[in-house]
């Protein structure tokens, strides 16, 4: 932890910055125990209806997920959480995030991942915002949605806002690709190709998110929302949501 703190205080040291980035890579590792790789957020409904069958279908789906969903919802919550200082305003933001997720499974998944994230990073990081947040979580004052706590974590570790949003969009989208490769199924090579094609889209989406605020939230990805609502009625399921 001392090394981690030293790195954070040494922003002019590129070696330190590179080392610091490893902490962020670590929490996005598929083995990091927050459960994000057990959720499809409605994608599995599209896979079972054969709407997503090929590598190109998967790319187009993830591009839609990025630009029409995450960049209008969770990406904005990461940004708002990062820039909001007042704790009561953060509690309100968490409530709005909860209410903004109409589909029950997606709402539960986001809160579940957020809670696991706090529990996983607190013992190994010095994050004053998350320590205060954990107390609120224990007092049942917050649902603790993942984009909210991710924004707090990134700010506490002194990552810039662009990096915070970009890495959140990266992990949200890449997690879906990894899941799709198993569920469709597609080869690992196809998954790698899709991720490489998505990276420039992530950059574009991040720039858009940085221009947006709560007033720009939008649930216009209605097909995805309906797919998430219908997920619980699938006869066989690989994923929780």
């Amino acid at each position, binding site marked *: 932890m001392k090394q981690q703190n030293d790195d954070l205080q040494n922003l002019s040291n590129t070696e330190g910055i590179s080392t610091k980035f490893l902490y962020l890579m670590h929490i996005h590792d598929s083995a990091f125990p927050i459960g994000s790789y057990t959720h499809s957020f*409605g994608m599995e409904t599209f896979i079972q209806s054969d709407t997503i069958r090929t590598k190109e279908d998967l790319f187009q789906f993830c*591009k839609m997920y990025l630009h029409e969903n995450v960049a209008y919802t969770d990406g904005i919550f990461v940004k708002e959480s990062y820039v909001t200082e007042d704790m009561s305003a953060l509690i309100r933001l968490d409530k*709005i995030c909860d209410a903004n997720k109409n589909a029950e499974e997606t709402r539960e998944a986001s809160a579940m991942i957020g809670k696991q994230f706090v529990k996983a990073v607190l013992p190994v990081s010095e994050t004053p915002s998350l320590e205060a947040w954990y107390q609120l979580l224990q007092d049942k004052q917050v649902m603790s949605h993942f984009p909210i706590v991710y924004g707090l974590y990134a700010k506490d570790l002194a990552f810039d806002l662009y990096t915070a949003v970009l890495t959140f969009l990266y992990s949200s989208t890449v997690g879906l690709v990894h899941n799709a490769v198993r569920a469709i199924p597609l080869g690992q090579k196809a998954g790698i190709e899709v991720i490489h094609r998505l990276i420039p889209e992530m950059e574009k989406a991040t720039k858009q998110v940085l221009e947006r605020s709560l007033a720009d939230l939008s649930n216009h990805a209605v097909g995805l929302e309906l797919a998430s609502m219908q997920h619980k009625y699938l006869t066989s399921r690989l994923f929780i949501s």
Partner: protein
Amino acid sequence: MEGQLALYFTLRQQKTIMKDVYYQPPLKASRGLYVHNPDDISVYLMESSGGLVAGDTNSFDVKLDSGTTVTLHPQAATKVYPAYNGKPSKQQVRVELAEKASLTWKREEVIPFAESDFSSHTIINMKCDSKFYWEEILYPGREKRGETFTFHGCQTQLEVWMEDDCIVYDQLSLHPDKQNLKHAGVLGNYHYIASVWLIDQDIRIDPEAWNETTTDHIVSTTRLRNAGYLVRFLSNDLPRVKREMDQIAESTKAVEN
């Protein structure tokens, strides 16, 4: 134009009455009608201009005292004319529900014409034991004139606060020039977005009864956090959407009775 309509309902000898009405054209309210029973007052919301022109704002303020039951019926769909001057047309709805008050706002239909720009914000403040039912259909435009998603922008926001808890924060912001509306995850080939919000801690419906996908109609239901349901539609079959909305409304009445 700046249309305003403020309605205040209270109880008099256990009967809901419309105590105060303030209006500014083009908005106006009908007198209160007791269609089903003396406990439930129905009021028609009238708009005499024929639609919202660019720069127009219509504002509704509705307040229900404790124990009142009210049904509001928009008389016609909200037609939104082109925004040639670059100004959006706006609608604002503010509702205050006291303890055990119940408000049903029947189908709010919005038809954004080609090149129009519409923005609506509906905010509800309610108590844990009050009830709020809201129906909405968003059209793609005047389809018979070949207008489907030819508007500049159409944004509707519904915000429901139950005391300190946010129950609904749903904004649909459609900008056909900037968004990939045709992807199956967005609107696909469907033209109508419809929603039935049932905000009521006591209500129980069968979500599986409203869960179906066909080539021209999708409907599904989700539980809102401890406070009711959303039934959402994507459809090309408008008569079916309206029929199913009516069936949902009837089924909730049957539960209440």
